[in-house]
């Protein structure tokens, strides 16, 4: 396939199209508007449906409806809009419906700003809405990865009958890079033959719901969900960079992970032994690799574009086995590799 030069937002939209997405439901919010704009043309051309919903609430519920039919469908938004989508995401998790939801994280809380931020980490990986559930979360660090992970998002959503989040930010969404697209997938127009809704012709009616009122039913349902999340642990993905001889492991994801990589390259030339673990799946979290690195006596530094969220999962993973520092980047700016030099040197010296 020929290389193409595109924005991260468009890469996700194009990725969804090539992964067989047939319905897209969106609502305008910066910095993800390229996704609905692309889809408004691409979906009808692909014989699919594009709806500009009246709200993020409605867009997420349209996704729920499409998911119930076993069709590949997606919605996208940015932080304030993601808060509104959480109701439907919780119902989808409870009803075991597959769908892809993109969050191009911007600064918060509240209206915040439209710049890059990783302030939605907790919302993304800890469930986000009400109830004891999880969504699988994929965090691209490049535009190519944004494209590729969209394929994976659909695959995982249907494999686990669960909502899958793609967590980018204003950097990933607005950055333009060359990528190599894949061959478009030929997927069945309707998947989930054993559970999708299509009219109860010659069979028992199917009910997709999250309400379980009879004695013990909800406990049983929750147990089933937890077993599913356990099964999904094998989907963990991360990038490991120069960790073998490193005395300090930096943990950073998404755009920040990539910027930190540049800092490490520079510091390596000056003799600083730093390495990187960049989680690609934020849920499931790459706990095992962090624990085994901690057992090797390495120190840790978590760098995030927030004031400390993923660091809690890093510390849970390493179980107090190693020293664990944190550097937080405040929202509202675009960090450069230079911004992380001193924090890394300080952590190496501590």
């Amino acid at each position: 396939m020929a290389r193409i030069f595109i924005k991260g937002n468009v890469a996700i939209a194009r990725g969804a199209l090539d992964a067989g997405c047939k319905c897209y439901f969106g609502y305008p919010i910066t910095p993800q508007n390229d996704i609905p704009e692309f889809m408004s043309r691409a979906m009808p051309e692909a014989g699919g449906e594009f709806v500009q919903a009246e709200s993020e609430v409605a867009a997420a519920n349209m996704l729920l409806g499409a998911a119930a039919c076993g069709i590949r469908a997606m919605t996208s938004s940015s932080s304030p809009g993601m808060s509104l989508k959480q109701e439907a995401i919780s119902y989808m998790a409870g009803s075991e419906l597959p769908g892809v939801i993109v969050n191009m994280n911007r600064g918060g809380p509240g209206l915040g700003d439209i710049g890059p931020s990783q302030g939605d980490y907790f919302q993304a990986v800890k469930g986000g809405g009400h109830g004891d559930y999880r969504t699988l979360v994929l965090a691209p660090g490049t535009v190519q990865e944004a494209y590729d992970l969209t394929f994976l998002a659909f695959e995982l959503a249907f494999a686990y009958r669960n909502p899958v989040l793609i967590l980018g930010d204003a950097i990933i969404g607005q950055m333009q890079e060359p990528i190599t697209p894949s061959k478009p997938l030929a997927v069945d127009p309707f998947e989930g033959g054993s559970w999708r809704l299509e009219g109860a012709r010659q069979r028992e009616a199917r009910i997709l719901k999250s309400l379980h009122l009879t004695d013990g039913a909800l406990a049983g349902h929750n147990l089933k969900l937890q077993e599913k999340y356990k099964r999904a642990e094998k989907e963990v993905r991360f990038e490991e960079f120069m960790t073998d001889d490193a005395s300090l492991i930096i943990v950073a994801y998404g755009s920040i992970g990539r910027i930190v990589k540049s800092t490490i390259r520079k510091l390596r030339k000056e003799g600083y032994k730093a390495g990187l673990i960049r989680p690609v799946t934020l849920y499931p979290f790459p706990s095992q690799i962090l624990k085994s690195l901690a057992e090797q006596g390495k120190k840790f530094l978590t760098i995030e574009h927030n004031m400390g969220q993923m660091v809690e999962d890093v510390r849970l993973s390493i179980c107090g086995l190693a020293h664990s520092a944190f550097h937080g980047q405040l929202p509202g700016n675009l960090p450069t590799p230079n911004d992380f030099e001193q924090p890394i040197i300080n952590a190496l010296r501590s």
Partner: protein
Amino acid sequence: MHEILAYKSPSLLADIPSHYCPGCHHGTIHKLVAQCLQELELGDDTICVGSIGCSVFIYNYILLDTVEAPHGRAPAVATGVKRSRPDKFVFTYQGDGDLASIGLAEIMHAANRGEKISVVFVNNTVYGMTGGQMAPTTMIGQKTTTCPGGRCSDREGLPMKMAEIMAGLGGVSYSARVAVNNIKNFKKAKKTLKQVFEIQKSGKGFGFIEFLASCPTNWKMTSTDANDRLKKEMIPFFPLGVFKDLQGESK
């Protein structure tokens, strides 16, 4: 002795005891929905979008492929279903708190887009399942657990007339209000519901039907008094009739 089969329950209706209170109209409306779907031979290809309220268990009574929508979101969920499966018959079944309060944005926009779905709206002027709180359709002076002195227009505004509101939207092909408080109205209601379903069946767009319904439990009345109230208080304020019929106009 010669026996005549006077009534046969539609096979789409489950033969189970009802959880609805005595005198509640949901059971009657469920039956009408099942009858009309069956008579139009739609049952095999129908996807029902349930909602939150007393009718949340609709899937226990009408044996259809069903998805449960969050409170008020049924028209958005139905949009997703119908856009994915334009070949299927899709309807929502919603109460007044669900449709006219928390879900007002979803119903207005699904209607205005002219989604090719049918909406069955049951207006009994209270939140039933949660114990009789004030709804957007609660009548002026009507006492509920959250307007114990009676609804006051200065404080809580006037009851919303959804069938008329729907008729004013461009995307709506058909909007009507019916009741099932007596045989005459019941028969009219069935005819109207069938028309609403036929509009979708023929691909003509969005159809809306409002059922005036009683809630004896939360109105704190006997079933017969509740039917009486529906006739004497509700119908004068919420008139029965067809407010829009694009299909009829084009004939």
